[in-house]
């Protein structure tokens, strides 16, 4: 309980939030192009937040750079629009300092799988309790159409005149081998599934990675190239155990290969059992951080047992 953080410490108050509560009252109007998949991320995030009845003031949305990074401009909550590739460490630290916050991190495929790949790997392995949405449009959009880490081999662009000689990254497999505990892919063309998956991800205690297929009609595919989509959980053609790493891994390989054959497979691909503690739970259990959010110490909950320099220099005698 802290008097200065009522949205966090009042529990689920009587107020019921709906998705309009996450829409800034006036301006700014989204600068995304007509037909952009990013609108679907914004919409499904608002729905998921309303589903979980989160107050805008208890949410911190940290974004990277690119069209996707503007998500925090159009979503009403505490927001931190960081620098290219570095949204994850900003979000991670904020969560450690205030474990009562609902932290969502978002960025593009270049941001998360390219320049920020190291942070993606380590945030996943440490299993920080947060939701990480990667807007995967297989292109660099804001900088006008360069080849991205998820662009298919042979992709021709102004930076790859001869066609990309690189195999695209495998985002789901990367998340699995790095150690994420919830891994899903959804698509802007499937908003109902997207908001369900985002709700699950935000509810998940650990690192939830969502590879969100967001068409870029200006520089890459338009929406119709992401339909029909198949939800693997709804399809009779696919059967695997989402809690089994080996089966999940095999399924992910198929999903990643098929995308470049024009087949859009979506759904939950790995959901680790709830036995695994998230990073801050693990640290609290080890006595490496306090149970109560650290920030409250600066708002009235002062630590009475603080060891200061005059206590510490005794050992230097």
């Amino acid at each position: 309980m802290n008097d200065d953080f009522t949205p966090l410490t009042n529990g689920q108050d009587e107020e019921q939030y709906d998705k309009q509560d996450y829409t800034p009252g006036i301006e700014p109007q989204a600068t995304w192009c007509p037909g952009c998949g990013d609108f679907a991320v914004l919409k499904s995030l608002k729905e998921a937040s309303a589903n979980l009845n989160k107050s805008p003031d208890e949410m911190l949305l940290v974004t990277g750079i690119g069209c996707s990074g503007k998500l925090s401009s159009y979503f009403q909550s505490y927001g931190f629009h960081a620098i290219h590739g570095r949204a994850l460490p900003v979000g991670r630290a904020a969560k450690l300092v205030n474990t009562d916050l609902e932290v969502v991190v978002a960025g593009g495929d270049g941001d998360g799988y390219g320049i920020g790949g190291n942070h993606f790997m380590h945030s996943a392995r440490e299993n920080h309790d947060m939701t990480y949405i990667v807007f995967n449009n297989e292109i660099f959009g804001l900088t006008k159409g360069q080849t991205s880490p998820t662009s298919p081999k042979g992709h021709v662009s102004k930076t790859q005149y001869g066609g990309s000689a690189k195999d695209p990254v495998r985002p789901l497999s990367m998340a699995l081998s790095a150690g994420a505990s919830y891994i899903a892919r959804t698509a802007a063309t499937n908003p109902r599934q997207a908001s369900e998956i985002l709700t699950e991800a935000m509810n998940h205690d650990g690192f939830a990675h969502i590879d969100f297929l967001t068409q870029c009609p200006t520089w890459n595919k338009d929406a119709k190239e992401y339909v029909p989509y198949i939800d693997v959980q709804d399809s009779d053609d696919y059967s695997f155990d989402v809690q089994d790493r080996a089966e999940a891994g095999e399924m992910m390989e198929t999903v990643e290969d098929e995308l470049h054959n024009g087949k859009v497979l979506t759904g939950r691909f790995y959901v680790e059992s709830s036995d695994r503690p998230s990073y801050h739970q693990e640290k609290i259990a080890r006595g490496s951080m306090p149970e109560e959010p650290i920030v409250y110490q600066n708002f009235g909950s002062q630590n009475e047992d603080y060891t200061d320099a005059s206590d510490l220099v005794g050992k230097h005698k």
Partner: protein
Amino acid sequence: MGNKTVTWRIAGGSGDGIDSTSKNFATVLMRMGYHVFTHRHYPSRIRGGHTFAEIRIGSDSVSSRGDEYDVLLSLGDSFARNESENAYYGNEEIKPLTENLHDLRQGGILIYDSGVISEDELPDDFDQRVEENNWNVIDLALKDMAREHGRSIMRNTAGVGVTTAVMGIGIDGIKNILEDSMEGDVLEQNKTVLEKAHEKGQDYNCSIEMPEKNNFEDDQVLVSGDDAVSYGAVDEGVQFISGYPMTPWTGVFSRLSQIIPQNGGVAEQVEDEIAACAMAIGASHAGAKAMSGSSGGGFSLMSEPLGLAEMTETPIVLLEAQRAGPSTGMPTKPEQSDLEHVLYASQGDSNRVVFAPSNIEEAYEQTRLAFQIAYDYQMPSIILTDQKISGELRNLDESFFDRETNIGDIGSVLTEEQISELPHHDSGRFNRYRYSDELEGNVSPRPVPGQEDGNFLATGNEHNKQGHISEDPVNREEQMTRRVSKMEDAREDIRESDHVLQTRFGSDDPEFGVITFGSQQGTVSEAVDRMNNSGFDVAGMGVSQMKPFPEDTVQSFIDEVSDCLVVEMSSTGQFENELVKHVDLRRRPQDITLHSLRKYNGNPFRPQEITERLIEVINNE
């Protein structure tokens, strides 16, 4: 500083316990009533390689390692490479002796392990040099003696036992410190080795005259620059540290990684320095007192998030513990060549405060000041140390650390009640970045995520009052002007603080000046004392406030002299460049001439190098 000092050097291989032995011995000497000051020289290797540590002992406070030393304790290098590699590395087994002879003073005492270095391995000119320099040689098979009465690893104890004999200081203090850290057979064996070695040492008819002792009454503590920075952060209530190991930054990182969690905070070793700095920003944004740091290479990675902290006005404190560059450079050697790096790193107009403490007291106080400025002004503060100050130990009065703490104060933040009373944008978002004309000063107080009705956007893009991306020219000027004005406001605050930042020493009516910054000040002040004792009129200044640069103080110092020597550890004269930029050298009837003394060979200055250069400058005038 008192006239009489004695310097003891212990030499061996990396991993031989040279550092811990010297630290323990320095503690014993301090407890006995001596002032002590240490210097470490070590290679970037886990095992083996030439390493030594020095303790300079005085009756008054000691500020530098001096010019030469009086007693050498040369042990073997337990991890020397095998003979087949000698062609490349030289015979490492004898280096603890041969590498240390050049600075041993005339008439000094040379103790070496004759069981490790046999007579036929001695350099050809060894006897001649002993004779020429009038050295007293104590050749004892220390390792064998240790093995006989305990275990061969106790040869450091044997060496200290011989040292106590030549210093005439008895062995009770050594026994006490052994008792602090060991017990049982190991303790008893060490004590026996100590006694036997002490007796053997007394058989040699040589001794050294020690300085006068003080009556300290158990009120002294032996601390390093790393300790001082760490304790400054602790007294400011630091709650979060993130970092990646790198020498010499690791000293502070490891200390605080232990202390912070015990005090209810969190310490994070992370994947790289970009993440380390970005995490400090995230932690501070969420309302914690946060710091990060690195050495030059890691700080290069931090330059990107550093700009983000400036733009989002997120308070962070960074430590940059310099070592010799460029690139990997010389990882365990001091240099001051990251000055321009920390002043100007990251794109755009830089907006930060930088302190380069010149001694242990300043390291503690300026770390505290760095936190206060960062949190009050919502900007990055950087503490610039180096390998020299980070590891050198000096005793000081324990009461120095009896201070008011500043725990729980995160500067210009708001309560929910204040948030509710302040203007919000029509969109519902809080006006986090108000213009100067709506504020007292230029700092716009911030909400912390989780507070009711406080939500706003922080962004590395230029932004308007509620944090939305904006390229409106009027807004841009308002925001940019307000942000950079904070540095000037901070300058006033720093001026009014009672911390020592610029230190003037030496003659009140000088003909010549010497100016330096950061860790070299102690050596420069000793050189200035010597000059004045020899009849010259020299004044010195040590600068610690690197940004915003203290133009007025430095200008008035420079104005007193016609010639000024600039002493720094950098090959291109980075500090001199700052002086030229900030100080008018053409104000007096005659111009002021700056002379340079730059060192970049990996070893810090000795006072004599400074006095020699000064005399050269003076003679040429």
